[in-house]
């Protein structure tokens, strides 16, 4: 077993490396663009106007309510087929991109991530203490400034643990990309299994790489969480000596 593991790691290291790079790429793009897209969705979601709320509600409902693999197949085989049937599209310069599975994959992951994150952000926005928002209004802040200076910083603080969780969830979701021919880490492992018929060794190798990625993700996100909660630390320091003084 151990020699087989070494055999897999040394002979197919380039496949695993390529898979690792693609996985990281898919993860980074989905999280960054998913988060950017999630912000307006979350703001619309907390609107008091029903018709403003309805659009993000429908979007989130559809993307959270269906399996990711079904969305991926819909996008890649469904939309892909429809696009390919447009007259003359296959001779158009955009066809190089439209035939590439990469963009369909990214789009699906971005939309899916956005749906989950928008819902997390909605929860965050709604949990910002009302008093703080009222105070901001009382100071004469416009709604935009209130969002920028009060609601968003508080929201990130509140949602960060859930957000971290969702990033890790997205990392694992990228493994579905191999079903539409994108050879990310899981795809690479499957390819190795096909070549060597050594399922344990190949999937253990891929699994360990996922664990390493998750280790660095949690480590980095913990650091950001500390930064986001820096005000609590300051408050703690302020109240600390005062209490000590009181007991003396």
């Amino acid at each position, binding site marked *: 077993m151990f020699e087989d593991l070494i055999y897999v790691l040394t002979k197919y290291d380039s496949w695993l490396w390529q898979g690792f790079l693609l996985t990281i790429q898919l993860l980074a793009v989905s999280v960054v663009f998913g988060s950017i897209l999630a912000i307006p969705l979350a703001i619309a979601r907390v609107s008091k106007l029903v018709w403003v709320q309805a659009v993000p509600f429908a979007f989130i409902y559809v993307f959270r309510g269906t399996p990711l693999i079904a969305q991926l197949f819909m996008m890649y*085989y469904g939309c*892909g*087929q429809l696009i*390919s049937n447009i007259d003359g599209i*296959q001779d158009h310069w955009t*066809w190089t991109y439209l*035939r590439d*599975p990469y963009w369909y994959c990214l789009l699906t992951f971005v939309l899916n991530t956005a749906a989950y994150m928008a819902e997390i952000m909605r929860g965050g926005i709604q949990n910002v203490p009302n008093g703080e928002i009222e105070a901001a209004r009382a100071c004469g802040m416009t709604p935009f400034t209130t969002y920028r200076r009060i609601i968003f910083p508080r929201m990130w603080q509140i949602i960060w643990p859930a957000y971290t969780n969702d990033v890790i969830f997205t990392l694992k979701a990228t493994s579905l990309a*191999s*079903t539409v*021919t994108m*050879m990310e880490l899981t*795809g690479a492992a*499957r*390819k190795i*299994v*096909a*070549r*060597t*018929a*050594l*399922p344990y060794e190949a999937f253990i190798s891929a699994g360990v790489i996922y664990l390493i990625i998750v280790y660095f993700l949690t480590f980095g996100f913990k650091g950001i969480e500390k930064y986001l909660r820096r005000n609590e630390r300051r408050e703690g320091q302020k109240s600390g000596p005062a209490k000590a003084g009181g007991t003396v």
Partner: protein
Amino acid sequence: MKNWIKVATAAAVGVALSASAASAAWEKVVIATEGAYPPFNYVDKDGNLQGFDVDFAKKLCETAKIECEIVAQDWDGIIPGLLAKKYDAIIAQMSITEERKRSIDFSNYYSVTPAVFVGKEGMSLTAWKDGAIVEGALDGKVIGVQRSTTHSAFLEDNFPNAEIRMYDTQDNALLDLTAGRIDATLADSGVLVEWVKSDAGKGYAFISDTFAPKEFFGEGTGMGIRKEDQDLKEILNKALAEMLANGSYQTINKKYFKEINLHPN
């Protein structure tokens, strides 16, 4: 003393029972097939497994006088499932290769079908000529292939400048071929001959000669079994030889492929 006899008798009965259990171990065999590789194995509209492999497996069991159950299993997990004893044999057009032999054993080969490229009518690809690779024949081309197959290994090892797309099923590769996302697909001619004739394959044709180099595609497809089940291997090989001798194999061959002889040697 009497107790001692009792123990001895019990032991003797135990041995006899386990001996009979061993010889009867293969009265029932569970066989796995993929169910997504028409016309070799597929699921019909009523949900039943059909195809050459399925007919062959049924006849094989009949010939060997064993009771069989045929189950469908995804291609990627078909070897791990065998090792995990979810079933006892694989009859799913699995090519016999050295690397697969690292973990499982095979019966004698039971069919061989040459490979062929399929693409838009009028196109032409020559990747294999006069017993050798045509270097650079696929440069810049996007070729779809089912992953975990000898065809995919053949493309990856010999055509570094081609873009190889790996599909989980051949059906999906064909879908993308008609969508224009890949330029051609490489697969068993036995699978593709039917597709080219069908409505879905209108406008597409064989764009290369058929070829089956032994060094890449192996000696043919075998029935996969666990290494320790040598007695089952004997049973399967014997039944296969009997089917070839009495013509029942050829009947099934003709039913699915009029043009291709699946057991030429």
